[in-house]
């Protein structure tokens, strides 16, 4: 073992000593040699000495790039990148992607999205590489599916094919809980604008609207709206949306408990009516017709969702349904995650707006949860059949996590009270609700 080390230290010395020497010199003289572009193409390579080669190589290492940030440099997409973002910024962002990996793997937070997004972020922060630019593979994926809204739409098809709207059909009025929870979106819009007026943040009305959609607790809707209304904020918005969706078991219970009495949390809901296959099959068509009549701007999102669901419930195209639920959504999840992750590059993420987005996203989630619970209390008061206000919290979407949380909080009071299927109604209604909210924004802006 030691012999090997000696042997290779010897070999290494041949390589490392000149590199080190040159590096020191180069570092001392770098003020005099302005580097205008990050990856200078060597035209007349014939005349270089080996030392020059080593210098060139050294200047193309990531260590050099991080230690020697330059003014006025542009990234692979042509956007400016400050010296801070080139050096410490990249290190911070790489650390953040590692935190995302930790959350995804050790804590089980939405790993299907956070792992591709995190890895995309890792790749996006590599100095000198052109991965997120034109011709780079993540840049190409971004063009192929985010710029033209294709990836979130395909995800929505898969979500439609995976979702059973039966619980909603068994108790349609719980859909109103899914409506109330969208107050997380519109309430946050007002809050964001107010904070901007107060000079705390600096968001335009359009940016504020985009950010508030995080309160819809729906990943693809957030990516869809962000790429339309505020493409620069896409990275932070997606990270906020998926992170808070993953954090639902942490964020929601305190709010739910604060707004309900133990008696309310113990309310048992009556068994729901039978749902026929025919009803399930008609449901996506009904929802789409309503969308056509009332809010055509929502039709890309709701169209994709109902298409996937119709493929599922028609029962005659099982192979298409299976493909939507598996291969297609998996492939698109990988591509979408990597593409969205490219917005975790330091130059896009380490900007003042990010903090505002993370904060407002959390506020939006909390408001949505509270609005759902309060609506549940109101409905319980006015409805003949008892309604447990806890299922209102599931109205934010975040399917099926929010419904499970509602169930768990209910069981803490009464372990025999199973709310899961009752909570699935507002939960899936919340998906439709936030797609409608997205349509409202699209029709305004």
């Amino acid at each position, binding site marked *: 073992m030691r012999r090997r080390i000696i042997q290779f230290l010897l070999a290494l010395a041949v390589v490392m000593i000149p590199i080190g020497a040159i590096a020191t010199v180069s570092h001392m003289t770098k003020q005099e040699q302005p580097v205008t572009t990050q990856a200078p193409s060597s035209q007349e390579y014939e005349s270089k000495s080996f030392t020059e080669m080593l210098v060139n190589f050294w200047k193309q290492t990531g260590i050099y790039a991080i230690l020697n940030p330059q003014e006025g440099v542009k990234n692979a997409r042509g956007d400016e990148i400050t010296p801070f973002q080139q050096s410490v910024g990249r290190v911070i962002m790489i650390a953040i992607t590692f935190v995302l990996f930790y959350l995804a793997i050790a804590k089980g937070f939405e790993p299907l999205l956070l792992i591709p997004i995190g890895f995309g972020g890792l790749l996006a922060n590599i100095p000198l590489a052109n991965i997120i630019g034109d011709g780079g593979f993540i840049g190409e994926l971004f063009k192929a599916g985010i710029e033209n809204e294709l990836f979130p739409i395909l995800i929505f098809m898969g979500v439609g094919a995976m979702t059973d709207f039966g619980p909603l*059909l068994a108790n*349609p*009025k719980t*859909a*109103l809980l*899914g*409506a*109330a929870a*969208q*107050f997380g*979106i*519109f*309430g946050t*819009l*007002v809050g*964001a*604008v*107010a904070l*901007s*007026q107060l000079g705390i943040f600096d968001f335009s*009305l359009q940016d*504020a*609207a985009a950010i508030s959609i995080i309160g819809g607790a729906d990943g693809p809707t957030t990516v869809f709206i962000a790429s339309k209304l505020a493409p620069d904020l896409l990275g932070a918005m997606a990270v906020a949306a998926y992170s808070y969706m993953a954090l639902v078991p942490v964020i929601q219970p305190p709010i739910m408990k604060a707004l309900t009495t133990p008696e309310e949390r113990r309310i048992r809901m009556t068994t729901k*009516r*039978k749902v*026929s*296959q*025919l*009803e399930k099959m*008609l*449901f996506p068509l*009904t*929802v789409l017709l*309503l*969308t056509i009549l*009332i*809010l055509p701007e929502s039709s890309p999102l709701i169209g994709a969702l109902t298409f996937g669901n119709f493929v599922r419930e028609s029962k005659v195209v099982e192979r298409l349904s299976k493909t939507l639920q598996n291969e297609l959504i998996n492939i698109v999840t990988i591509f979408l995650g990597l593409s969205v992750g490219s917005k975790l590059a330091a130059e896009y993420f380490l900007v003042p707006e990010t903090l505002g987005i993370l904060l407002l996203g959390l506020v939006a989630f909390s408001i949505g949860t509270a609005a759902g619970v309060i609506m549940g209390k109101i409905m319980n008061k006015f409805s003949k059949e008892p309604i447990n206000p806890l299922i209102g919290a599931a109205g934010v979407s975040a399917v099926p996590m929010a419904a499970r949380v509602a169930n768990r909080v209910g069981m803490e009071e009464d372990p025999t009270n199973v709310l899961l299927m009752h909570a699935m109604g507002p939960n899936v*209604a919340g998906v*439709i*609700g936030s797609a*409608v*909210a997205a349509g*409202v*924004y699209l029709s*305004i802006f």
Partner: protein
Amino acid sequence: MIIEAIKYMFLGMGIVFLFLYLMVVVLEWQHKLLLKYFPEHFEEEKPKSDRRERLKKVAAITAALHHMRNS
């Protein structure tokens, strides 16, 4: 601008409620209609999970055999 945002809040929540409320109304009306004209669709279906059932049986028998064999 804050007034503007509040207006949009009312507009947005109004539309969301309008949409989902109409959906509830249509779904309940549709349910009644289906119940009236296609009652057969709401009858108890025979459980179709035959295959899974059989697989479970295979597993059960195997487990039993395994138990017998090991004891």
